[in-house]
């Protein structure tokens, strides 16, 4: 085994251990003290106990969603950066986040979300799928990166404009508040209903993204060279965009917009895998899961009267990071 391979195996094992650790810690953090003794319910002795209820109905779905959402953001960020060959790319760049948010806002606005709880996640997924279809129409069969970015900008601005319009016209200020809070991004008060709704889509999206590795490696050389190595770029792009839409759409729908994870995680982990876009995919999924689980633990521990929203925390860490990244890249260019 070469030294780089050994480092990769070590990295994967280390990250897996950290993810399991963060997952377990996440189960025991919250306003109500739940100890190991409350988990007796797990073995069927006292399923009605409050502790067990809190654990199984609140903590467990929250931790599962934390990992799933984080892994989705990390993985899709790594895939998009590899495809676009740009370390500043993010799932938001192809318009999926904005469009998912718009459809969720429509669900709020029409009152659907109030009368039918699942309207929100379903709306998010529909929005992501709509963004993908629009991007396919705008970018067509042309497989160039620039067209994809421009189409993403167009979709994002359109979705942003429509979201503002909906908020502007909102007859009910409470609905507007609800929308704004949802857009901040959070994992609080999620149930297993959310898990069952989102996780199947997320899993299918992961599969599509994880199998892109070789194509992303080939794209290191540029698009013509990748095509000359036998890759069908139009099909690669379709898989990338669909995989991102399914996983990020479902994740955004249950958690709201959680930014910068897809940017920060692949960037930090890239040196660990020798900058290989293929090896970066599984590593970034684990890293994203760890980051969101940890951030979600921190928001529950912060001593504020109201819980800080998860999306706010990731943005507060992520935005300065983005600035530093920009400065570093500029220095490299000089």
């Amino acid at each position, binding site marked *: 085994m070469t030294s*780089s391979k050994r480092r990769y195996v070590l990295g994967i094992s280390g990250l897996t251990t950290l993810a399991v650790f963060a997952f377990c810690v996440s189960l025991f953090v919250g306003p109500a003290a739940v100890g190991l003794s409350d988990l007796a319910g797990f073995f069927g002795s006292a399923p009605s106990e409050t502790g067990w209820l809190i654990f199984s109905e609140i903590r467990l779905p929250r931790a599962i969603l934390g990992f799933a959402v984080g892994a989705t953001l990390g993985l899709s960020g790594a895939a998009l950066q590899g495809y676009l*060959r740009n370390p500043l790319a993010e799932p938001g760049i192809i318009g999926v986040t904005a469009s998912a948010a718009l459809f969720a806002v429509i669900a709020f606005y029409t009152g659907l979300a109030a009368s039918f709880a699942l309207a929100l996640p379903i709306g998010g997924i529909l929005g992501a799928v709509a963004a993908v279809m629009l991007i396919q129409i705008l970018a067509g069969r042309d497989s160039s990166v620039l067209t994809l970015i421009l189409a993403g900008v167009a979709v994002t601005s359109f979705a942003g404009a429509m979201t503002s319009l909906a908020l502007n016209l909102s007859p009910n200020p409470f609905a507007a508040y609800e929308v704004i809070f949802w857009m901040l991004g959070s994992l609080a008060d999620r149930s297993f209903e959310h898990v069952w709704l989102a996780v199947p889509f997320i899993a299918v999206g992961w599969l599509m993204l994880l199998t892109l590795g*070789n194509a992303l*490696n*080939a*794209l*290191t*050389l*540029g698009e*013509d*060279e990748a*095509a*000359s*190595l*036998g*890759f*069908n770029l139009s099909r690669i792009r379709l898989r990338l965009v669909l995989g991102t839409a399914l996983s990020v759409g479902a994740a955004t729908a249950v958690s709201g917009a959680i930014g910068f994870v897809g940017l920060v995680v692949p960037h930090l982990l*890239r040196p660990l895998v*020798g*900058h*290989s*876009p293929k090896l970066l995919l599984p590593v970034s999924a684990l890293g994203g899961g760890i980051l969101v689980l940890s951030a979600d633990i921190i928001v529950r521990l912060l001593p504020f009267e109201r819980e800080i929203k998860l999306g706010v925390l990731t943005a507060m860490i992520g935005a300065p990071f983005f600035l530093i990244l920009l400065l570093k890249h500029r220095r490299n260019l000089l």
Partner: protein
Amino acid sequence: MTQLATTGLTVSLGGHEILRDVSCSFETGEFVALIGPNGAGKSTLLKSLAGLQDYSGQITLDRQSLGLIERRERARTIGYLGQSGQAHWPISVEALVSLGRLPFGDENDQNGAAAIETALADCDLLPLRHRAVTALSGGERARVLLARVLAGQPKILLADEPVAGLDPTHQLDVMTTLHDKAAGGAAVIVVLHDLSLAVRFAERIILLHNGVVAANGTPDDVITPENLADCYGIEAKQGLVDGIPYVLPASRI
């Protein structure tokens, strides 16, 4: 013997005909230079031969239509080195060169390791193998990109201006490596701007002008005062120094 041929090849980009009715063929073991003024369609012809371009007319690989050949199969036969290629991530030299083995799959690629070693040695990269590609000089990087194509051991090797921007030493290195591959049985088709390198290394030269084949034959047949005047609008001094042919563009006409 493998043969790559075009018949009545026409390529239009944005309503403009870049190549018009181009018919030519290439066989394994020969070194062919594609020359012509800027915009003559050299790169487009090379891309079409690599299967990277929509076209009308016919391109065949051993009498089989190029478009009908499975992509990976095609990639195992035809290697393509693009113009001003680059590496977008700071991966190691060895990792970049191994990308040339992608068409062979991960599992049943027994020759992979040996092919990569040979390619690294051919391009004199063994001492650099663990360096990051982005930290290399332009000449070193050009050799790495060439080694990537050689690692696939293609029967047909297409290279678009592989010596552009290289110093004379590296130009000769790259041309000699390519020439050796042709001598070793590959068809090597190279887009060149340097006419001296073309007459010195190529057995056959194809001169493109405004998207059509203006001349196709031995260097002596193609590099004539008339052709140079018609296509490039130049007058050139030609001759031999110590048995090495040269073409020196002297003046515009």
